[in-house]
């Protein structure tokens, strides 16, 4: 992280993502056949 140039300062943000128990970016329904 220290190698990256910092973006303009914004106060820290910690946001909960409501996934309803599902993975966030990996569809559980797509199973390789």
């Amino acid at each position: 992280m220290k190698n990256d140039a910092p973006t303009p300062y914004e106060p820290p943000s910690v946001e909960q993502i409501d996934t309803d128990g599902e993975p966030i970016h990996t569809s559980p329904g797509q199973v390789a056949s």
Partner: protein
Amino acid sequence: MLTRRREESFAWGRLLWRLGHRPTRALTECPERPIGAKLELTYACNLRCGFCYTDSPRRTLQRTPELGDDEWRRVVGEALELGIVEAVVTGGEPFLRRELALEVVETLATAGVGVALNTNGWFVDEEIAARLGALRGVTAHVSVDGAQASLHDSSRGVPGSWRRAIEGIDHLLSAGVGVCAVHVVTPGNAGAVGDFLEQMWTLGVPWVRVTPVVVNGAAARGGEWKVSREALRRTAAEFEKRRGTAMRITVQAATGGTLSLQGRSAPGSFLVRPNGDVRPDSLRPFTFGNAARDGVDACWAALREGWDDERINRWAGAMKKPGDLPKSELVAYLDDEIPVAGGLSGPPRRDEGGSGESGPTALSGTRNGHPPGGRDAPVPEKTPPKPVDPAAELLEAEKKVRDLAGARRYRHAPLRWSGSARQRFVRLAGDGSYLRLNESGGVVMDALDGGTVADAASALRERYGLDEARAGEDAVAAARDLQKRGVVMAASAIGSFPAEPGTTDLPGLEPSG
């Protein structure tokens, strides 16, 4: 709105019940087995609060006899056999019986019982904190009456008590123990509740309970206790608007409003007095036998049979509003309790060596083992704090709290994270939930992997060139959010997952709904 009217008028509470507006937790029948127990391990306390609902300073002076250690062990064992799932361990000050208090909490928590432990924090050292931190489901409720020593110490009657409470809380938080700071609000400190909330937030307290005085016990001897609950709610709302909801704030009604439901809402738990006498709760001064003499099972059976006894209903029914509580002929903790079942009970004498023989040893010249009546009994004098410059004292107190909080070390909870410097996704192993952090949130998260809030502030300063005050404030805010979400936890916490909230059940707990 309806709940607020119920706080002001018991008649409203009764009317609402008849109309079907019933608190969600209310029971209409006493369960076959108790759900919980409140255990008052000792009468004694090292502080001298003029509002003490258990009238402990008077009891301390009187050296009222209480159960021995073995009798308490048996009572706790029987309560567990009956299947309780929650308990309040309290006093007096329970850590005046240090080993017993720790053993009782350990026994209950190890059995899976949720435990609320009430303490003034004076005796909480690293050893107590470590033993409590090794347990799950325990929350320590620590009394703090203000953001500076003079407010708290004048309220509690012993100089040094604010410092001991704050340091006790720091020990507990450092060991990963769940903490609720309990602020008893009086006309003397009501104006400073906003400062107190800020300070608890800085200290890292996850939960604050703000409660007006319940006019039982010592408070019923006199004094001006009334404060505006509306003003307290406004102060809490303003704080949340400013700081968010990472610190839970409960504004307790503390009016004794549950008395309006006597004869309607049945008890689900029982209270054991230090001499073993069993009552339904803190508000109702009626006994149903003695746990050490008769056994917990028999006392619970008596309570199930007699909880809506006509004498209790008449007593509660005569009170129309909370202001009637101290005017009643029978005031909880100030007057001797009325036995509904089990007859007059005396405490078994406490064995000097703590081995605790049991037996109904009524003391001569006493009733229920207490000297007759508490209304005219002498109480210990308060020691007033030294006069100080309030503004300078507040600054000093804020610095102390910042220093304690800034030096506490954290570590990551079990988790994995992905993403980039700009944005990261965190998956918590504890509950499988996901969080999104921005860049500066990631900086704080990294600093708290073995570091302190002061380290996080330095990291923000270094990376973004912030001034010290801004970096400090933002680091505290982010640390509170990360703690609340379960990303970081105290480095010394023995468990793998953040502290859980425990239970609470103090007098005046207003029925919800």
